[in-house]
């Protein structure tokens, strides 16, 4: 396998894996966020007086769960735009 073929294979694999990374990462984060959201709605329905405090904690927790999906996105972006193995291909 010569250099050019290796770069092409690495590029194809990188693109497929980047899509899979984002998809699986978004799946997990979406599942976790739906549970947080439903729990927060439940808590707010029970105690409307605490709505402001619950909303503040809700946003912070959502962002922390969301960050796992964002990490997956950053890894996908590294695979697509800053991949050392496909440097000769000029994908971007």
């Amino acid at each position, binding site marked *: 396998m010569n250099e050019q073929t290796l770069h092409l294979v690495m590029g194809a694999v990188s693109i497929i894996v980047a899509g899979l990374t984002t998809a699986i990462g978004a799946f997990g984060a979406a599942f976790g966020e739906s549970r947080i959201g439903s729990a927060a709605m439940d808590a707010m329905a029970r105690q409307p007086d605490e709505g402001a*405090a619950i909303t*503040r904690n809700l*946003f*912070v927790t959502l*962002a*922390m769960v*969301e*960050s796992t999906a*964002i*990490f997956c*996105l*950053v890894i996908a*972006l*590294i695979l*697509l*735009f*800053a991949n050392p193995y496909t440097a000769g291909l000029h994908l*971007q």
Partner: protein
Amino acid sequence: MTEISVFGDPVVLWLGQLPVTRATLTALAVSGTLVLVAGILRHAILRRPGSLLAIIAELAVEWPEQLVADIVGHPVPSLAVFSGTFFYFLAACSVAGQLPGVRTPTSNLAVTSALAVLVFVTVPVVGIRSQGLGRYLRHYISVSPFMLPLELMSELSRTFALSVRLFGNMLSGYLIVALIVALVGVFVPTPLMALDLLIGFLQAYIFAVLSTVYIGAALRAREE
């Protein structure tokens, strides 16, 4: 179509050996604008109390103080200044990113890492100042000495998470808008830009809240 650099940052000019990148210039411009606005608000609150600008100024100062008091449990003016500065700077960066031709400086990993390192350094400084070196170091092994590596790892990983979370959110917003502009046209990405602005404000709020929580935990250990 213009070149979209995802991770790189073009150097605009060299000050001797010091490279000045586009993100540095944008961040400096945002800081300058913020200082200017703060000066205008200060003038308003000194000369014309009761006017609209003075009310805005009071809200802008009281809101971070209330936030810090809610999280820490008692008012901490210096921490309110610290976290409030983070919020206003990040929100202003997000607004600046909506201007045509300007890329938000927070979509650069170096900028967000610098902000996260600021929090990382402030936590032990505040902890040692409020409870002393011995007591601060002892809280690492207060649960069990075997927890020490985990505690150290969590200090590092939360700093990493703080920077990459902000970077990823702002970069994804920028990339989505850039993609839609390249594919469709000029006016189509307006709703996505509004969403990007909302996410920018939310991330600024979360950065401020998380830094308050981390520093507040170092402060709070004194009272227990």
